[in-house]
């Protein structure tokens, strides 16, 4: 009897595609995504996982330049002492980085870390005397790992300079840890230093975007329920055509999604002191465009799926996959550069970038143009697809 029930359960699983997708495909997809993020499955992992750093050499001495060369030689870093051609940050190609320019690059999120080598740094390398001039690491607090890594690699570079240039190992026994460093450094966070918890806005955006995608997919399922209940047929028999019906659904889903994001951020403001009111214009723009894209995305899933079960399996797979890639679960800036680029296939990655620009980088509204345009393009594409897929409900 027990064997009979076990057999029956396996037969039912074999005939339920949604359950199969949830049981076998979703875990494999997630395992693969996280394996790529953390382990790397390509052959260019070493190259793509290097930390990009810009260096502003204010000292311009032989030893400071030797330090820059030592940093450039480090396989864990990709160092730019001058503005690279086609770089996404400000400055002319080939222009040496200044402290201000380097800070701009960090603020705009082009790099996570900048190193400033102030005048007098040449006397600080491996001298272990008092009054040493420290190097300055300008860091984006959204990537705390990168600044610590660069701090360590800076020590290695200083040791290399010393080994090649005959520096004197004049250790001061019993001194402070800083005093025993090959090169002392200070870390300055260029963003979010005034805020108590700088990661709140990142997580508010990440969680909000992920859940409006789930909610839009679920709410889009109303179309399937209305098909089954005959309500859709009744509506289409009246004066409202398929264009009107989809427009109404899209507008209602967009307004639901806006309300969800607002609730999330207001909660963040009230409980976690998220600075919502001081970023209101950017927040409103990003919320409306993100909600519109998520609503259109939900319509695509709803028009693609034939049953609620199919929709559930599809939504879990696509929404979780896009969010793993897009940065809701694991920050994109901690992924390899190639994966960061690849993740832009999802509209949610653009949405998160936009929210980060608003709350993290304090970017002006004009700086949101790429994200808003991308979200508009995704919305148009999704609406087009949903309209095509909805043909099956039209006149036969």
């Amino acid at each position, binding site marked *: 009897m027990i064997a009979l029930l076990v057999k029956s359960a396996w037969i039912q699983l074999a005939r339920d595609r949604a359950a199969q997708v949830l049981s076998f495909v979703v875990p494999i997809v997630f395992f693969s995504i996280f394996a790529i993020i953390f382990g790397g499955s390509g052959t260019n992992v070493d190259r793509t996982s290097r930390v990009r750093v810009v260096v502003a050499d204010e000292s311009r001495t032989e030893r400071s330049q030797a330090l820059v060369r030592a940093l450039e030689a480090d396989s864990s870093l990709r160092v730019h002492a001058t503005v690279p051609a086609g770089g996404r940050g400000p400055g002319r190609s080939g222009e040496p980085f200044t402290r201000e320019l380097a800070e701009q690059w960090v603020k705009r999120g082009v790099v996570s870390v900048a190193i400033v080598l102030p005048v007098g740094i040449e006397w600080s390398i491996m001298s272990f005397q008092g009054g040493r001039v420290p190097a300055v690491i300008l860091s984006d607090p959204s990537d705390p790992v990168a600044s610590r890594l660069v701090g360590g690699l800076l020590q290695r570079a200083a040791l290399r300079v010393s080994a090649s240039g005959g520096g004197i190992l004049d250790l001061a026994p019993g001194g402070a840890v800083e005093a025993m460093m090959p090169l002392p450094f200070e870390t300055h966070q260029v963003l979010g230093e005034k805020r108590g918890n700088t990661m709140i806005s990142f997580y508010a955006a990440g969680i909000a975007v992920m859940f409006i995608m789930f909610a839009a997919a679920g709410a889009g399922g109303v179309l399937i329920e209305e098909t*089954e*209940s*005959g309500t859709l*047929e*009744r509506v289409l*028999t*009246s*004066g409202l055509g398929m264009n009107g019906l989809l427009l109404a659904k899209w507008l209602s889903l967009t307004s639901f999604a806006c309300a969800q994001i607002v609730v999330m951020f207001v909660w963040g403001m009230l409980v976690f002191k998220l600075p919502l009111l001081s970023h209101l214009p950017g927040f409103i723009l990003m919320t409306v465009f993100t909600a519109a894209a998520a609503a259109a995305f939900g319509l695509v899933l709803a028009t693609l799926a034939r049953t609620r079960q199919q929709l559930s399996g599809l939504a879990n797979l696509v929404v979780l996959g896009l969010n793993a890639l897009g940065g809701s679960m694991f920050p994109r800036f901690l992924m390899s550069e190639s994966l960061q680029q690849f993740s832009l296939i999802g509209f949610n990655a653009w949405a998160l970038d936009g929210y980060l620009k608003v709350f993290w980088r304090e970017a002006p509204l004009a700086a949101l143009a790429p994200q808003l345009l991308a979200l508009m393009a995704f919305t148009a594409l999704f609406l087009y697809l949903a309209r095509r897929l909805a043909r099956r409900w039209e*006149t*036969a």
Partner: protein
Amino acid sequence: MAVLEIHEARKRFGATQALDGVSLSLGEGELLGLLGPNGAGKTTLIRAIAGRVRLDQGTVTIFGRAVAAGAPRSDLGVVPQENALYPLLTARENLETFGRLNGLEGKRLRERTAWALEWTGLADRAQSVVRSYSGGMKRRLNLACGVLHEPKLVLLDEPTVGVDPQSREKIYDMLGALRADGASLLLTTHYLEEAEARCERIVVVDHGRAIASGTLPELVDQAGLAGRLVRLRLDREAPAPPSGFRHDGDPGVLVATIRDVGSELPGLLARVHDAGFGVRDLEVRTASLQAVFLKLTGRELRE
């Protein structure tokens, strides 16, 4: 002029010929029953009349105007088989929604909504969400949403399926009121006794064609079942039925078909008496719509 005229309607879906030249007409104020086994083409026909199916050949005209696929008609009301309602809206909100979708606004919408709530007997539950309604209440509201805009032609797809006899009576009273107001009704149902009792004319559809149509006596003739069925319950079992009779499942029950009750029935009874049996009960009736339907469409199960 006929309210509805369908001429040689043909529609194919892939390998399936859903409609294969069906023709029918519906007169003003008439209640026409559309019967047929599952897959006979009834729903496709209803959808074609509603403009939701584009015919490959043939025409559908309502009040002399051809129906164009995808173009809604304000003179047409459709009551689907499913309770096509928004379950989390109240009865009033559902009526207002479907009223607006069918072109009602302002004072007219308010008047018609009030009328519909009274007509359906749901006035005291107007503010309750539909999800909390019984099956019969949902059926009545479903009907009201389809006729709120006072269409002159109403298509009803199984309007009484799954409800108790009281609700069924109420729904037929409501349909009677619609007819009294001048509406013409086309009704599909699998409840043959309802069609027999309520419809003036019946069209039987099978394999996409209208295979018979008319009043019940006309259908009986068309099915070759003219005459009366005589059914006798004997005082004991008859292992071999007397001449002219056959068993009706039970050895104690005999049946025979006669054309003229007055001249043939006495002879039948005499034969039973001569065979030594007494008669406990006697029933004489015409062929039922069920018998006609099975004769016309066969006993083979349809999927």
